[in-house]
């Protein structure tokens, strides 16, 4: 069953949760072949009931010790712009759509999402454009995200500190 995983990390993002469970967005997901929708709602005040969403099978929870399994099972990830969430999704090689919370002021985390978007690693939208983006998005334009190379750091440091 093709699955969409929605994550807001440790934040609250009620607008996204509300938007993604409307009949119109659920229909848009269904028309793209997604049948299951899993929501990680974090500190948000909305925790939708499994029966509340037409067209798709809905599950919702607040937090887990690890969302690695939910990410693994997903065919599409819809996330807030948090760095941890983005990097975890990209690290698992999953197509990622970031929904920017334009109600947050001076959100420096946008810097990373913006850069990753410019490098074609993820798609980008707001709550108001979510439905349209889901209808028209082309995931094939996304380029694979290569992991960082901490070995480069270690080699540099060893040399700099004279480690044998």
């Amino acid at each position, binding site marked *: 069953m093709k699955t969409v995983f929605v994550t807001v990390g440790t934040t609250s993002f009620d607008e996204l949760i509300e938007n993604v469970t409307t009949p119109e967005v659920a229909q848009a997901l269904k028309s793209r072949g997604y049948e299951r929708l899993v929501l990680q709602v974090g500190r948000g005040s909305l925790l939708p009931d499994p029966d509340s969403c037409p067209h798709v099978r809905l599950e919702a929870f607040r937090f887990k010790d690890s969302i690695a399994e939910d990410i693994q099972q997903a065919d599409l990830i819809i996330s807030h712009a948090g760095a941890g969430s983005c990097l975890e999704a990209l690290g698992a090689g999953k197509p990622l759509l970031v929904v920017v919370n334009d109600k947050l002021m001076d959100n420096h985390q946008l810097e*990373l999402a913006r850069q990753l978007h410019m490098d074609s690693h993820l798609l980008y939208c707001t709550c108001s454009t979510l439905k349209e983006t889901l209808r028209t998005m082309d995931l094939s334009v996304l380029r694979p995200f290569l992991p960082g190379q901490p070995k480069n750091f270690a080699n540099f440091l060893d040399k700099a*500190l004279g480690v044998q």
Partner: protein
Amino acid sequence: MRLHIVVKTGSNHKPGAEGPVAALVVAGSGGHTTEILRLMESLSAAYTPRHYVIADTDRMSEEKICTFESSKQHSDSQFTIHRIPRSREVHQSWSSSVLSTLSALCYSLPLVFRLRPDMVLCNGPGTCVPLCMAGLLLGLLGMKKVVIVYVESICRVETLSLTGKILYLISDYFFVQWSSLRDKYPKSIFLGRIV
């Protein structure tokens, strides 16, 4: 004058040539801890003992550190975990931040003086400022040269964090992970993404 000497001679100091490199590792909350542990994963057994310092209000970092250390293959290396008061909460005002940083310094100084690390490794949480200052002081007093290594978070693409701006001036090795920052901060080291 002495401060100038201590800050400028960092790159000549090679503690690794004399034996293991004792590291004081600052673990901030959430993403900071994840990033610093990725860096630690890449370091060899030469970096021992490893003294992790976390803020007293941080619950999750201790668990992450213990999980990481227990997965290490080098059974002869040691680690410790220490807690100090948090320098500053997110959105804390300027004036109360100065006070809480001074309070954190009162814990940092005796801790760093006792541990005498060869190197302090940090990546952005406010907690690292008093610890790095304590390391600098150790050098100023002629007691030990402590190499200060700062790695700016991968989240920072266009602008440095407040901690980064402060430590850019006193660190021995300052890493950034995006080329736009390397262009703005010429003293920084750019090796691409390292976490």
